[in-house]
């Protein structure tokens, strides 16, 4: 039933989601919003992983690698969010801003 929707739909959805996330990450000035963009990009990847698992694997029940990969990415995203937010708070405490354009200490 589910297979009635072709794979390319999922891929387009994932690509769209990734582009939205990328745009957010690149264009938002607020560090929190940048983190949120990154989350969107990670989840776009997850959609890809799961879609390819379901459509690409000869025996999806026996071969769970794609789902496990997606789970790892979710775990990673959680960790990333935790570390990223902690960094944002730390930066805010020391510089009173979360504007990424003002956080440019590591330049030439």
């Amino acid at each position, binding site marked *: 039933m589910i297979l009635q929707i072709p794979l390319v739909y999922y891929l387009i959805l994932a690509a769209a989601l990734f582009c939205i996330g990328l745009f957010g990450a*690149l264009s938002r000035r607020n560090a929190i919003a*940048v983190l949120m963009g990154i989350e969107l990009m990670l989840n776009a990847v997850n959609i890809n992983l799961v879609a390819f698992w379901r459509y690409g694997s000869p025996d999806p029940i026996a071969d769970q690698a794609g789902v496990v990969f997606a789970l790892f990415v979710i775990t990673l995203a959680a960790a990333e969010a935790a570390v990223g937010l902690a960094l944002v708070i730390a930066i805010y405490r020391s510089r009173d801003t979360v504007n*990424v354009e003002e956080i440019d200490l590591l330049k030439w």
Partner: protein
Amino acid sequence: MFQNITLVIPLLPLLAFAIIVLFTRNNNRTSALVAILGILASMAISYGVFTEALSEGHELAQHPFYGAPIVWAPFGNSTIEFGWFIDPIGAVMLFMVPTVCLMIFIYSVGYMRHTHVDEHGHHHSQDDPRYARFFAYISLFASMMLLVVVSSNLLEFFIGWEVMGFCSYALIGFWSFRGRQERHIDEAQVGRARAASIKAFLTTRVGDILLMSGMILLFITAGTLDFTKMFDPTTLNEMLLGESPLLGWTWPTLIALLIFGGTIGKSAQFPLHVWLPDAMEGPTPVSALIHAATMVSAGIFLVIRMFPLFVFASATGGQAMEVVAIVGAFTAIFAATMGLAQNDIKRVLAYSTISQLGYMLAALGIGAFVAGSFHLITHAFFKALLFLAAGSVLHAVGTNDMFKMGGLWRKMPITFITFLIGALSLMGIPPFAGFWSKDEILLEALREGFFHEGVPLTLVQFVYICLAAAAFLTALYTGRQIFLTFFGKPRDEHAYAHAHESPAWMWAPLAVLAVFTTFLGLWNTPFLPEFFRFVGEGGLLGLAEAFAHTEFDVLAQVSMVASVGIGLSGFLTAWAIYGFRPVAAGQPDPLARLGILWRALVNKYWLDELYGYKINLDGTAQPGLLIRFFGALSRAAYWFDRTIVDGLVNLGGWIGRALASLWGAFDTYVVDGIVNATGSTTGEMAGWWRKIQTGNVQNYALIAAAGAMAVAILFLLRSFT
């Protein structure tokens, strides 16, 4: 067993020297005491050794006291060991040197205290500003002479010899010092003393270099410098095998003559005698020390020590002994003539010393070893006596010029009598010591020269004639000295008025030396030759047979009468010229009528102008022709060196510098240019590229995304084609 502490003998005066220099130099009396105690202790040990040597008798010659405990320089197959070596003549020297030195030391206590009279006629005595230093120097001097006497090794001998050279330099120039004391400084004297000390040092240096080369050659050819080993017949014969580089002479001859060169310098023989008369600028005790006990005796003693080598050289076809005899005989008469024309009381004695040293060498040269040695001993006593007495005179009158003296016997009777004893001894009048030793030499020369079995020996005849003539001249100039100094009317009332007998410190040594001078000759009379039995009968190491000693036969009696006759006739001639009608004040010397000959004598045959170093009365000095020639030569060589040699060297340097600056430019501009260009290009580019490091994280992310997109597009394009 004093012989085992022989090496302490030279050490004691050395210790005195060290103590004076280090501790007591600010205390004049203590310094003098230390010096006298040092030489006294050393004399005690010397007498001990001498007594032991006497009890050995002539056996000692072949079995000398010997020990060499100090290993100085071990080489591959030879070792230089320092120690002591006492054969009979060495033992006699051990008796003579400390005795004479002690007398001179005691005398110096009084002599170095100057008396001057102020305008009120009061006498003031004051020590010489460098009184303590004087005693330090003479202690060192005596110590080194004793080292020469006891040394077992030519190198050890040479050490003493050279340090004596330094001491003589320091002491001859003793009054070249301009003290801070209020002592009146005589600029002329300062100049003369300075020039004389340098002259003495440099002239003897010529001889010393010859001696050193002889010593080095001896060590190379014989392999040892030890007196007990080098005269071994096998060693000497091995030396003959090699061919010496000079004129086909044998090694022993060459070495003997080089060593004799040292004697010529140190004992002031012709042609290196020029320093000795000028050495009179030193204080009188120094003159006595140099002329009697130490310096010049060391030169004779060197020939005595090396005598077997000379004998061997002559026996194997060399001419070593002959050269010694000729130089000695010629110097004896040559110096005697110059002594005739001196007005300085000490200079007369200086020439007489040169002449008497010539006697000794002539005696040694004709093989009369014992006679020559005995003359060395007696001469030391009577010459020390003469010098000290002359010093006593000039201490009293304040001038050296005999033409400002006269009639002094009334004022200073002790000095007069002692001087007379010394002078009679020098003239060869019996019974004084000089008579016996001089007569012995004349007898040996007469016997060898004219009554020798077989071929007549022209050389020895020449020696005899020279020595006999010198004996006459000696009596003549000594008589002149006595008459000018002690008899007649005072020629300088001022000096005469202040003349006085010297203090006991000075006349007591004179008396002791006069006693020795009177009786020492009895040690070796022709009828009782005790000295010969001790020194001559055992031969020497390397010369096993005894030296010839002749009986008291008709010839000996004739010779004795002849030498007394010669002496007396000389003295009577002096009386006829200077005593019968005394020279009045302002009158020239009667002998000045000799004209050009007299001028030659007064000017010492112009030898100072020829090759010496002429020291004028006013303290200036001019080098002689030879020195000037060598000076010009060295200046020319200097010019050559500066202009030509240095020019070439500088040219080479200049070319090197030019090349180097070329290479330097290449290095700076090309090599460094490349290196710097690499660096600066990198730096420039880094300057551009670092601008992309904005620090803005979104820029990075954008670039990363763009890059990924570019890769993806490339990938897509590729998959389409």
